[in-house]
């Protein structure tokens, strides 16, 4: 069931298992039948740790969504709230508890499970409302880093960026540090930590501090990871703004992947059986899980979309050839062998059918003129063409009232690629946006400016060309079919974060000091002492650190970035004050 987690370079099943164990232990503490009241936000992440069956085994009979009012009737002994430690949620819980019918029998016991951390503040809050005593068990469930795929961990903290950069609330960084400590407890102390940016520095400081808080607990596990690289989101604002062009990237851009699931329009997936005449087209969106456990998907997910078609048609030929085999099967033995392979072949065939449908859906969009125009502008900006003046395409899009998110992405992209816009250009865009989309977006724009996504150029210097050239962010010769450089994922643009990671691996950051200084925040290096005996024997002389980054690494890295994009597109619910950008502040992957 968790095959996708063991497929990467590091087996992440252990992390998932640890999570499951902790959950089971908690559930068993509340003896008897239970109902869970969910903070809706948590259901997705929890689904990646434990399916409903696990909960069922531990006598969870009902599940509700947390909302004010009286709790639904359910004949269970325990009501357990699974919530994030937020005061707004505490108010809802208080309401629930106060409305509980005290006269009912048997009485139901209340418990709270805080995710990911128990909070004094919340408990104090509940105490002031006079309901703290109603909870028998108050515990925490440290769900910090959730294993998504064989090479991907996520905090699923969609508001982290907003909290860190707009509200100076570094709670999520604390969770990140805690999560990394858990990771180290399971996979050994990571000997080197590199980082860039204020938040990264803060996380590293906390990790060092947390380690000092438990001096006795020497970790005796041989370190699986060599290096931890922490990067602030604002070091590389460019990457999430540009349109991704891998297969998975496009699915995400267009339909949004959430908690590894994607919802697709159903028309293309109608069962094509004869006789039914397609009279009932399904109206529910088709929900698919996407991870490396699916052989075909693992193969094509990271290909440039232009290279996906050929793979799919090749696969189709192989599969139909395999089915043809049955005509050649003559002896009973051969037939038996054929039949034994049938389930696998059928699975492969349905997987192929799904992805062919998805590819068709995407192709309709990528071949449209608008997609092409948009991409052209993006690529012009990224390669440094005309970034300093008002762009006609953007103006036209505003005039035709294209979706605001598209406009904002382009304007921000231009701002980032020009180290800020000239005041006149910036004001022009802002005025256009306010007049077209409504004055209330003055708050949206203000927030973008606070986050640094949109800014006036200060000092009149544009650093981006230097950064672009030094880090080789723009590659003119991109091979989409058989890529030899990461720039293929954006058909030209090589993500800045990936370049930073690549250069760290070889030849080291010392070679790019100048550029690092141009990017925001400090860069640093920390070493964590390992007990003797766990230290790796160094091969060769002193300079053996610079190992080349494995080819696959860059891709692994990108999957982290992909998360952010998902959020950019889908947590966009601009109502006054609410903000457009969310996602990771600090994302990390580990060089092995």
């Amino acid at each position, binding site marked *: 069931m968790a095959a996708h987690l063991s497929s990467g370079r590091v087996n992440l099943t252990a992390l998932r298992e640890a999570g499951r164990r902790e959950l089971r232990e908690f559930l068993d503490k509340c003896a008897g039948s239970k109902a869970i009241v969910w903070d809706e936000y948590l259901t997705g992440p929890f689904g990646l740790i434990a399916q409903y069956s696990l909960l069922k085994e531990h006598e969870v009979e009902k599940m509700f969504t947390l909302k004010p009012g009286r709790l639904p009737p359910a004949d269970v002994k325990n009501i357990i709230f699974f919530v994030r*430690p937020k*005061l*707004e949620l505490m108010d809802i819980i208080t309401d629930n508890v106060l409305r509980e019918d005290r006269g009912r029998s048997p009485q139901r016991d209340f418990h709270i499970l805080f995710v990911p*951390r128990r*909070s*004094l*503040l919340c408990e*104090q809050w509940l105490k002031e409302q006079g309901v703290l005593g109603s909870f028998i068990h108050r515990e925490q469930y440290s769900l910090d880093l959730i294993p998504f795929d064989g090479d991907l961990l996520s905090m699923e903290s969609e508001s982290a960026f907003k909290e860190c950069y707009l*509200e*100076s*609330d*570094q*709670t999520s*960084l*604390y969770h990140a*540090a805690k999560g990394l400590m858990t990771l180290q407890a399971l996979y050994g102390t990571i000997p080197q930590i590199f980082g860039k940016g204020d938040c990264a520095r*803060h996380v590293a*400081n*906390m990790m060092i*501090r947390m380690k*000092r*808080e438990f*001096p*006795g*607990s020497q970790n005796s596990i041989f370190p699986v990871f060599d290096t931890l690289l922490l990067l602030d989101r604002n070091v590389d604002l460019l990457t999430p703004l540009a349109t991704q062009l891998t297969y998975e990237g496009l699915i995400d851009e267009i339909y949004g992947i959430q908690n590894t699931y994607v919802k697709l329009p159903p028309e293309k997936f109608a069962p094509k059986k004869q006789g039914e005449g397609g009279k009932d087209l399904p109206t529910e969106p088709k929900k698919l899980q996407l991870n490396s456990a699916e052989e075909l998907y693992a193969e094509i997910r990271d290909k440039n979309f232009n290279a996906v078609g050929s793979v799919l048609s090749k696969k189709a030929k192989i599969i139909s050839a395999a089915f043809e085999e049955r005509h050649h099967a003559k002896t009973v033995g051969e037939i038996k062998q054929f039949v034994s392979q049938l389930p696998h072949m059928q699975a492969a065939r349905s997987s192929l059918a799904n992805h062919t449908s998805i590819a068709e859906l995407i192709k309709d969009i990528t071949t449209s003129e608008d997609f092409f125009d948009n991409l052209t502008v993006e690529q012009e900006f990224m390669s440094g063409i005309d970034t300093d003046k008002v762009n006609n395409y953007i*103006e*036209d899009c*505003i*005039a*035709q*009232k294209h979706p605001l998110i598209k406009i904002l992405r382009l304007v921000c992209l231009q701002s980032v690629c020009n180290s800020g816009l000239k005041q006149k250009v910036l*004001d022009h865009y*802002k*005025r*256009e946006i*306010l*007049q*077209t*989309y*409504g*004055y*209330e977006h*003055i*708050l949206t724009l*203000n927030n973008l400016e606070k986050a640094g996504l949109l800014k006036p150029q200060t000092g009149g210097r544009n650093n981006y060309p230097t950064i672009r050239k030094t880090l080789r962010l723009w590659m003119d010769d991109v091979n989409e079919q058989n890529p030899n450089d990461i720039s293929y994922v954006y058909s030209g643009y090589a993500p800045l974060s990936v370049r930073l990671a690549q250069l760290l691996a070889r030849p080291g950051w010392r070679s790019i000091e100048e550029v690092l200084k141009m990017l925001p925040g400090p860069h640093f290096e920390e070493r964590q002492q390992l007990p003797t005996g766990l230290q790796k024997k160094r091969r060769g002389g002193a300079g053996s650190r610079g190992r080349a980054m494995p080819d696959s690494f860059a891709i692994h890295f990108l999957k982290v970035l992909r998360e952010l994009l998902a959020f950019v597109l889908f947590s966009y619910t601009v109502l*006054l*004050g609410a903000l457009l950008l969310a996602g990771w502040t600090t994302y990390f992957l580990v060089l092995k």
Partner: protein
Amino acid sequence: MDCYTANWNPLGEETFYRKLELYSMEWGLREDLRDCVVAAAPYGGPIALLRNSRRDKTPGARPILEIYSASGLLLASVPWKSGHLVHLGWTAGEDLLCIQEDGTVLVYNLFCEFKRHFSMGNEVLQNHVLEAQVFHTEFGTGVAILTGALRFSLATNIDDLKLRRLPEVPGLQKPPPCWAVLSQDRVTVVLLAVGQELFLLDNTSCSVVSPPGLSPSAGPFLHMAVSFTHRHLALFCDTGTVWMGTASLKEKFCEFNTGIRSSPKQMVWCTRPRSRQRAVVLAWERQLMVVGNSSECIRFVLDEDSHLVPELDGVRILSRSSHEFLHEIPEASQEIFRIASMAPGALLLEAQKEYEKESQKADEYLREIREQQLLPEAVGQCIEAAGYEHEPETQKSLLRAASFGKCFLDKFPPEGFVRMCQDLRVLNAVRDYQIGIPLTFTQYKQLTIEVLLDRLVLRRLYPLAIRICEFLRLPEIQGVSRILAHWACYKVQQKDKSDEEVAQAINQKLGDTAGISYSDIATRAYDCGRAELAIRLLEYEPRSGEQVPLLLKMKRSKLALGKAIESGDTDLVYTVVLHLKNELNRGTFFMTLQNQPVALSLYRQFCRHQERETLKDLYNQDDNHQELGNLHVQSGYGEKRIEGRVASLQSALDEFYKAKNDFAAKATEEQIKLLRLQRHLQEELDKPYLDLSLHDTVATLILDGHHKRAEQLYRDFRIPDKRYWWLKINALATRGDWEEIEKFSKSKKSPIGYLPFVEVAVKHHNRYEARKYAPRVPPEQRVKAFVLVGDLEQAAEAAIERKNEAEMSLVLSRCSAGTDSAVAEKLNRARAQLLKK
């Protein structure tokens, strides 16, 4: 060694008992033990004495409470100032329980320092305590009381006090001659004798029970004894008969007639675990008798008044001058030391002795053992027997024998030998007269090293405890650091040293040893009233999570805030901030936050959700006009009435000006203007215009045909031409007003060119209109325009004219084989020509 068995006394065929002196007591008691209330804790624990209590009834003469180590060294003494004491007893944690007549139980530590007290309830208070017993079960230490009303009350665990009053015993007129507390199947019950009958009292009922197989001639019961493990019971009848059996009264072991009819002063069990013999020791004034399953018994003469202390594997006998231990000789020792024993262990011991004498007999003995292949057993026996010996000399000779035997064995696992050497080293150290804990090996194993260390800590023998930890290489957290922490907690109570000195001394010793909780030590210091010391100690605490609550408790909130921020744990910061908010007045609170940006921004967050008004005050305080402006904008959109909204925006406008944000100010001004206008339009045209953006307002006006008004807005709000043109043709096309579009297209030169006209028309499926504009499109876009309207011929011409290969290919790709073959041919030719060049 010939005399080794001289003090062995046989009981029956198989078993021997010996009495050996542990210590000669130097406590210099002037009065007899019988004049004192005595209590000695099991496992070689301390001895408590209340002197002068019984004889000296003169008022004013205060009795003295004294506590001695098992070797008779005075640990502490204190004059007894409280009420009349009935009973003394020790808890499992070596606290002294002093049970008073009024049912109050006072708890003292080993050093006569009062810890706490509790009461055994009102019923006991009224009727007074007649007798009391302290007992130990798996639940902890309990107290049982017989009140003056002849009722029993008990608490099974004094640390979790739940008083139970047992039911009445029918027909009980006077105090029973004897009673005991039994623990059966996790239930605590009282067994008492009334004449010839036995009653069992549980929580709810009182039942009569009888011991199986008791001789009919046996008279009333005078005494009873429960074994250390609560498994066995002994009853003494006035005929002199002792009945021994299980505590459940289901099985009888044996019966013995002592021939003495008077009740013994004390009767206790003396059995080692897993022994076949089960024996009871009875003490009268002048004699001691060991009886068991044998027609004979062992008698000792008592020169002095003595007190018996039951232990797990024997009995300690205390008197004014000595402290002895009476126990059954364990099997391994018997095998080795019994006269003429041929057991492998005995032979090995002999062999080793001969070897030391350099006699060849050593080889003979060894050969004998090896021929029977019993050498491993022999080594094992010697190791085991060494554990039971009290004299280091004997221990050594047995271990030497074991070591000698080991030389002749391949692959004999060394752990047992090594562990025994270590254990004996520890035991000899604690048995030392200065320390005075006479633990036997069996007791030590039962007690465990952790508990032994605790007991050393209780006696403040920190250096010895640490040495033992180091010697046994215990992990720091369980060993050294735990002891150091205890030491530190003791240290902070030393009032004669300055805070500075104490803190430094503690830090010097503790450093950052693993598992030390400085906050625990600091809490202790604070509890002793040394707040300054506590703060100093907290400085050494690496875990902020631990520092903060204590600092808050000590009302050092600002310091707590600093620590919370350092930890990075925002929850902790929030907790302190809200604490500060309640503690300080508003002004000081804000000032405090000013200096702590992390806390300030978190508090802002809190206010954003909970107290919006406070947020305004906060921004006001630091003159953050931009944010104030934003707040006004936000609240403006919460207003339903347009006047309210305008008022809010007006405030925002002022703030934006103060913030020198001219852009925002102007935009706000425009918005106010727009709002007023929209209200006007709404009233006049009876259509909702409110909340539309400027763009949508103009578009709606055009859609409804109010071109003049639209024009007015375009001018008033200085909408850029390009955008206005786009807007207008889109809106007109939606309205289907092609005539107006044509008019508009001719009004002046289009700032957006004419391709948009084509596109808009095509989008609305009006090819006819689209065709009108295609020729007006400039040459570089003309091909695209003709393709859009579907005029491939013209498109082809335009492309050929421009000699543009990409455009030709574009047109070609649109040509269908059937209808457009002529065009395609033309294009192919032109392209070929182009390529030739």
